[in-house]
């Protein structure tokens, strides 16, 4: 199952002939007796006995190829074709350069039109992106981002927003077997200038800017970091339908009774900003009619999985319609988003026993606790029934206002805020 991933990773690390032995999958969750059978059995790929293969890997003299030094060079031609538009569509599809849907072919003329909407030179470096930490990072220029923006069907006036997303270097197709999703929320004057939707149906397929900006991020993630190749640079077992346009929408600032999200993160109202989130899914619980909105939200967030990996932690993103936001502020007394986050943080506690039995915690957090990293090291010493926070801090719980006030509806996802980037810097 992981043969392509293992071999291409070794290739990209400079050891294309690294010696591997495979055993059946999965190893996880199997008793020691099954592991013993794997060891005494055969490599499912080569058919050789596992231990014989391992011993040979350690003792068989190196070949000339395995001793080689120097560099492996890979180049891509700038121009594709000439060919008919139909054949080029097929070529892009066959090469894995699309999201499976038809694209706008990136002719020099269309790309030049896109490039007119930024003051930056086509050869300016925008960023580096990798499908996930073990993979190599690729660099890309303004022109390469423009090519992918054209393919997504974006209008040239959306280009600064797409460049801002690309400048974060964050892939929307993060390679994990757990099928991550990414989200991009846009704030500031650019939203109205390019006609983004923050109201009715903002998170659905009803707005050209929302749809194509989000789609452009997926194409950028495939083509500018080498991501999205199944079995090599994308391993999500089920995939994630949100990855088609990465939940791209604008916050409803006009109907938001609180500070807009970008101002919470230190930007000014007149600045235009993209903010990136990562998670797995969005869900809803109507909860009890007798409960107020903040209580309903805490009930749902109280089911989210905790974890801390050292580089990331569990987060939550609450997406509230303006009607819910108004009620939370005027009836339920949360006059800032921060106060609501604080209350949710304190009211989604869990027992120490449940925490350490959580799947991601045992993989990511327990090794940190054993190294003495706080607060996890101290939590290991607590009694099983002690209560500890599900989220590491209130800052990991964010609130966004979106929707058209046709229903006092809210949703929440296990999405963590990763960072923001200026759109204005790319005009």
């Amino acid at each position, binding site marked *: 199952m992981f043969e392509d991933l293992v071999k291409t990773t070794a290739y990209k690390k*400079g050891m294309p002939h690294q010696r591997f032995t495979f055993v059946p999958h999965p190893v996880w969750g*199997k008793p020691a007796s099954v592991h013993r059978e794997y060891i005494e059995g055969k490599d499912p790929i080569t058919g050789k006995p596992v*231990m014989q293969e391992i011993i040979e890997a350690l003792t068989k003299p190196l070949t000339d190829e395995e001793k080689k030094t120097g560099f492996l060079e890979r180049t891509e031609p700038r121009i594709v074709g000439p060919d008919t538009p139909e054949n080029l569509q097929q070529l892009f599809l066959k090469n894995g350069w699309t999201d499976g849907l038809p694209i706008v072919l990136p002719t*020099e003329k269309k790309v030049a039109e896109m490039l007119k909407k930024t003051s930056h030179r086509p050869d300016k470096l925008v960023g580096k992106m990798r499908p996930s930490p073990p993979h190599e990072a690729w660099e890309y220029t303004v022109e390469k981002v423009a090519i992918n923006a054209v393919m997504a069907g974006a209008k040239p006036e959306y280009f600064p927003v797409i460049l801002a997303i690309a400048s974060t270097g964050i892939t929307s197709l993060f390679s994990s077997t757990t099928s991550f999703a990414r989200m991009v929320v846009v704030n500031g004057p650019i939203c109205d200038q390019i006609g983004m939707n923050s109201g009715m149906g903002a998170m659905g397929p009803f707005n050209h800017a929302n749809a194509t900006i989000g789609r452009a991020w997926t194409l950028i993630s495939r083509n500018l970091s080498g991501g999205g190749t199944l079995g090599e640079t994308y391993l999500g077992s089920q995939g994630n339908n949100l990855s088609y346009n990465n939940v791209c929408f604008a916050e409803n600032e006009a109907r938001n009774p609180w500070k807009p999200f970008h101002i919470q993160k230190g930007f000014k109202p007149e600045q235009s900003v993209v903010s990136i989130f990562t998670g797995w899914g969005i869900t809803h619980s109507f909860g009890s009619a007798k409960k107020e909105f903040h209580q309903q939200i805490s009930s749902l967030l109280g089911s989210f999985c905790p974890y801390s990996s050292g580089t990331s932690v569990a987060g939550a993103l609450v997406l509230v319609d303006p009607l819910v936001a108004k009620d939370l502020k005027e009836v339920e007394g949360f006059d800032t988003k921060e106060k609501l986050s604080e209350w949710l943080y304190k009211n989604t506690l869990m027992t120490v026993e449940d925490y350490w039995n959580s799947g991601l915690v045992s993989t990511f957090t327990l090794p940190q606790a054993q190294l003495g990293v706080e607060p996890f090291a101290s939590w290991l010493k607590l009694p099983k029934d002690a209560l500890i926070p599900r989220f590491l801090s209130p800052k990991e719980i964010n609130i966004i206002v979106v929707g058209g006030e046709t229903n006092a509806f809210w949703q929440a996802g296990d999405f963590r805020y990763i960072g923001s980037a200026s759109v204005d810097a790319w005009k």
Partner: protein
Amino acid sequence: MRKRMSWLLMWMFLLASLLFVGALQAEEAKITVLNPRGQTPSIPLVPMAPRLDTLNDKTIYLVDVRFEGGKSFLLEMKDWFAKNMPKVKTVFREKAGPYMDDDPKLWAEIKEKGDAMIMAIGH
């Protein structure tokens, strides 16, 4: 007869013209586009470590990167060596930190005290 020949020649000329224009149009319909792929970095080749003549009387580190199931798997492998190749000394170690973290202290220990390493990645 001469009239029939003239008609035939005219039809042949018309057909050839149509074929020529069609071919020209097909040629004109071809376009070039820009390549959407980013620049792939060059890869410095890393020569692999020299191999051992034999594993007998050697110390082999069995390292678990701490992905699920790796520890149990390697402890079974340690047991296999003890039973089937008793002259091989095996040392089991769990890499420090989560699976994505580096562990330079362990690599230094293996360089100093070990002869080879088998790393298992569970899942």
